[in-house]
């Protein structure tokens, strides 16, 4: 058996390092593509050998690292991480293909950063030690920062710093929580350890409920700000919309916030001082994010900003589903992460293509693009439909599971979220109507449709959206297995 978990980090990292030293655009893109393909191969290998009937950790590796602090390099994959690894491994090759023909400065860095990002994100997913987790968590910041800062739009510098510092603060607060967890457990057991699962288990034995609440809140703050959820989302519209297309896609692949929610926060939740309050808080943040994101998206003039707010709205489902704390609502939330990654990739690629071709993203300055860009229109339509939760596409499965099964515990919040569904459909269709349909805006001149590589990569992702929308079981089953483990833990405590 290959040490897949480690290889999944190492391979993209090595390819990234090599890519940084390439000279031409073709070399950089080619090498990047190769690296992402190898990673995809490894991921598929892991997926094939993955047993989705058990919630236990698979492909487990552990090496002692800093014994005096109880830090180990331990990695593994389970049903929470596998789908997300799959997601990023699938999208990155297509992302590279999509960007292949674009001309830009320093392509070697561009592709190198994409692979670095991939390695970092996978690192977060496989890490089983808080320190390793945190290290990769922080590492994800760097590629994104530079993505926005170098290749971004007009306000890129501002947007990149805002994102960088905002989420860094959030992750530092999370780090504080981790410290608290670490020391409290150390005091409890007399043995220092940074093992995620061990610490999460120890959490329930801490005597002070104030301490438990403080730890829980500070850790979840890091996650919520990363996802993001209202009201910690301020960095999102700027960063998403100023980033280059690939950067925006990398942002949506940055599923580490939600991942942390499932891996760390949810198992801790039942043991907090006042679980009901926490659940209510999460449920509120989730459902309010959904509604609020949709409402604000409705008023956006910039296509990419609209998509960014729609992303905020969609991530609300993750929070809401997690708060639902029913097996299927939690699975739905996990599936929403997966689905959101695919769908938003298409949307940002579409917006990027429009920006490149038409030179503007302001919705009212577009119009009738469907005539000139029929291929884009088709793919974009699939993306939009998936985004507004059309059945048969992944978005629906996730939203359905989340809404239906969160309703068991959180009926009020689900109703709030349901209100947003019409609005979601509204802003999507309205944008579509203004940008793509109607009379062609002659001011845009003669514009080109997307190139064949772009068609291929976007269509491929769209097909995946369709495939997993029709047949979610390949990824959903493992999510269910793991959510069951999480929920049964909560159920045992009577929450």
């Amino acid at each position, binding site marked *: 058996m290959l040490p897949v978990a480690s290889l999944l980090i190492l391979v993209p990292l090595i390819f990234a390092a090599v890519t940084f030293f390439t000279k031409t655009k073709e070399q950089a893109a080619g090498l990047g593509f190769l690296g992402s393909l190898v990673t995809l191969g490894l991921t598929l290998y892991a997926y094939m050998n993955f047993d989705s009937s058990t919630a236990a950790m698979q492909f487990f590796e552990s090496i002692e690292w800093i014994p005096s602090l109880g830090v180990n390099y331990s990695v593994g994959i389970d049903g929470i991480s596998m789908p997300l690894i799959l997601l990023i491994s699938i999208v990155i090759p297509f992302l590279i293909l999509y960007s292949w023909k674009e001309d830009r400065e320093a392509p070697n860095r561009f592709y190198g950063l994409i692979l670095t990002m991939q390695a970092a994100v996978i690192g977060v997913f496989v890490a089983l030690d808080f320190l390793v987790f945190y290290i990769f968590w922080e590492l994800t910041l760097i590629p994104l920062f530079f993505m926005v800062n170098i290749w971004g739009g007009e306000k890129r510098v501002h947007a990149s*710093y*805002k994102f960088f*510092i*905002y989420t860094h603060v959030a992750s530092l607060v999370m780090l504080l929580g981790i410290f608290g967890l670490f020391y409290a457990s150390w005091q409890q057991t007399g043995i220092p350890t940074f093992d995620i699962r061990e610490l999460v288990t120890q959490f329930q034995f801490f005597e002070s409920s104030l301490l438990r609440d403080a730890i829980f809140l500070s850790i979840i703050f890091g996650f919520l700000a990363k996802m993001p959820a*209202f*009201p910690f*989302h*301020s*960095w999102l*519209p700027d960063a998403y919309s100023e980033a280059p297309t690939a950067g925006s896609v990398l942002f949506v692949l940055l599923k580490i916030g939600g991942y942390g929610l499932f891996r760390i926060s949810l198992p801790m939740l039942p043991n907090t001082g006042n679980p009901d309050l926490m659940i209510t808080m999460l449920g509120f943040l989730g459902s309010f994010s959904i509604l*609020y994101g949709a*409402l*604000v998206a*409705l*008023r956006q003039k910039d296509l990419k900003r609209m998509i960014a707010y729609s992303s905020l709205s969609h991530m609300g489902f993750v929070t809401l589903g997690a708060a639902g704390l029913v*097996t*299927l609502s939690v*699975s739905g939330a996990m599936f929403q992460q997966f689905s959101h990654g695919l769908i938003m990739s298409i949307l940002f690629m579409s917006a990027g293509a429009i920006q490149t071709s038409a030179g503007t993203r302001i919705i009212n300055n577009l119009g*009738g693009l*469907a*005539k000139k860009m029929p291929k884009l229109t088709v793919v974009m339509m699939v993306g939009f*439909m998936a985004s507004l939760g*059309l*059945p*048969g596409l992944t978005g*629906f*499965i996730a939203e*359905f*599971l989340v*809404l*239906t*099964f969160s*309703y*068991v515990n959180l*009926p009020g919040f*689900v*109703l709030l979220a*349901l*209100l947003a*569904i*019409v*609005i979601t*459909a*509204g802003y999507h*269709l*309205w944008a*579509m*109507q203004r940008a*793509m*349909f*109607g*009379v*062609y805006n002659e001011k845009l001149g003669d514009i080109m449709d997307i190139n064949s590589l772009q068609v291929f990569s976007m269509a491929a992702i769209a097909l995946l959206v369709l495939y997993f929308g029709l*047949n*979610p*079981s390949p990824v*959903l*089953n493992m999510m*269910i297995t793991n959510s069951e483990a999480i929920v049964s833990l909560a159920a045992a405590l009577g929450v």
Partner: protein
Amino acid sequence: MVKTALEDFAFLIPLLPALAFVITFFFGRKMPSGGAIVPILAIAASFVISLMITLGLLENPGEVVSQSYSWFAVLNIGILIDPLAAVMLSMVSFVSLLIHIYAVSYMSHDPGKARYFAETALFTAAMLSLVLSDNILQLFVSWELVGLCSYLLIGFWFEKPSAAAAAKKAFLTTRIGDVMFLTGIIVLTSDLLKLAGGFQDGVYLLRFDEIFSYIPQLAALQANILGFEVSHLTLITLLFFGGAVGKSGQFPLHVWLPDAMEGPTTVSALIHAATMVTAGVYLVARTFPMFIAAPDSLLVVAYLGGFTALFAGTMGIVMNDLKRVLAFSTISQLGYMMLGLGLGSAIGLEAVGISIFHLINHAFFKALLFLCAGSVIHAVGTQDMRELGGVGKVMPITAATMTIAALALAGFGIPGTSIGTSGFFSKDAIIEAAYLFGEHSNNWIPYVFSIAAALLTSIYIFRLIFMTFTGKPRSDYHGHESPAIMTIPLSILALFALVFGGLTKTGFMSFLEETFANSFVNIDIGSLAVIGQNELVEAAGHEPVFVLWLPLIVAVVGLAVAFVIYYLRIVELGPIASMKNPIYRLLYKRYYQHEIYTEFFSLGIVYGVIAFFSQVLDVIVDSIVEGIGILTVGASEELRKIQTGVVQSYATAVILGVSLLIILVKLIMEVL
């Protein structure tokens, strides 16, 4: 043996059109006439399979086709072809087939015809899949797909801003209903979870038989909404009905339907007759056991249906657009169907029979009406009735078939016999049931609604006929009769519109009554009605004579009015039909729905107020973050000035620092 073999092909019914969609979408452009042959063959095959299954069921109604497969989690996909589904399947595939054939010619000049045929194939597939769902989720999925296809097809000519807007409107309006439907499913699921005590392996929670088996418990659950004690079942069924209201264009979510004619006429035919709008009626029929067991639900259905029938009729009589008149007619007729279902509170399961009977008949004559209208538009190039007139002379077949359709719509026939148009039998059945209901509960509102609507129906449809086909041409057009490929479907439909009702009148009802008592589910509607506090009465048959004749009389009166005004033209309409007349204006403006719905509610309240304040909130949240940044940079610029560069001031700082530190520490220590 044959029957089992047929069952195995049931999955092909929606799948073949879906495959046709894929093939036509990707390769249609390279095929002759946009690859129309692929969907036509596929739908033909679906029709054949449906028909054969239906025939098989007719022999043995108890043995329904039921197949279930696990989809994801505890949910399944499956096929359920019981009598209700079977007739729907046959009708949908048949009408859709005819429309497709017709469209080969109708769309022959359109550059996007490949896309057209692909989308209509998908539309049909979605509708077929909706009909044969054996669980509520799959039904919802198909339901939404139907919505998507309607969006695509209404906006088929997307370069026309009005088409794009209409498509969006259709999708959004039905979406409101969809959300209610979804909410219903959510409430239902969560209730079922509670009642079933969690998930069990192999039990598909949302399959209809599962759902129906929990009806008594569901009815017993009470919820308190705004101070009213409401049974969960009532809540769920009303939410379902909300979905049906959206899809089937009932008041107040009917506004999308008149605009939906922005698409090609064939699309309108498909939407109005076979596919989309009937879904809502089908949903209520499908979950009828829940409705009848839920107190008050059917009453709501009946009132709303009756009201819609009348309400739409009032608008129908003032419209000048050929297709728009038909659109309002559809809304009105759908109102009848809903009314028919709603009357189930008195007549029980028979309601499903009469309602679906009307649905099927309506499908034939409404498809015919639209296709005829399409034929006229195709030939003449305009759809404004004020510019038409005398078309009958140039398009005799079209005129004849359309007249038949109009007769069917108005419900001409001889009571007590089997002679009559198909619309006559079904509509009269509903009106009679309404009478029964009135007699039974002393509540005459539905009956009054239905009679009034029948009058209006007759007026507006004959107004249409007279304005279009008779008299002199009112504008300069060059019409010609449509080619055979268009007129043959017209003729076939006309035949059905004429005789289908009479032929199947009795058999149809009894066949449909088997829907809820067979190998899949076995429900005693009577006991459910008791739960729902609905007292059932014995079937019809002893109504007074005037009840039987009144609908016909009303129809004839309507015809006469239209004849006098629009054929003989002996009444001067000018002062009445002017915008100065407030009633006319109100009707012509369609009760100011656009102003209320779009401009006031959507743009004003939602976009202007709620979304605006959300955006303000967003700016505030963002300003806090930005403010911290600006503050830091400002502080930095100010604080660096402390470092003056003069060494003496540095020394001062050091010494002051020492003194102050001592004092500060001392003070803090004293305080603590």
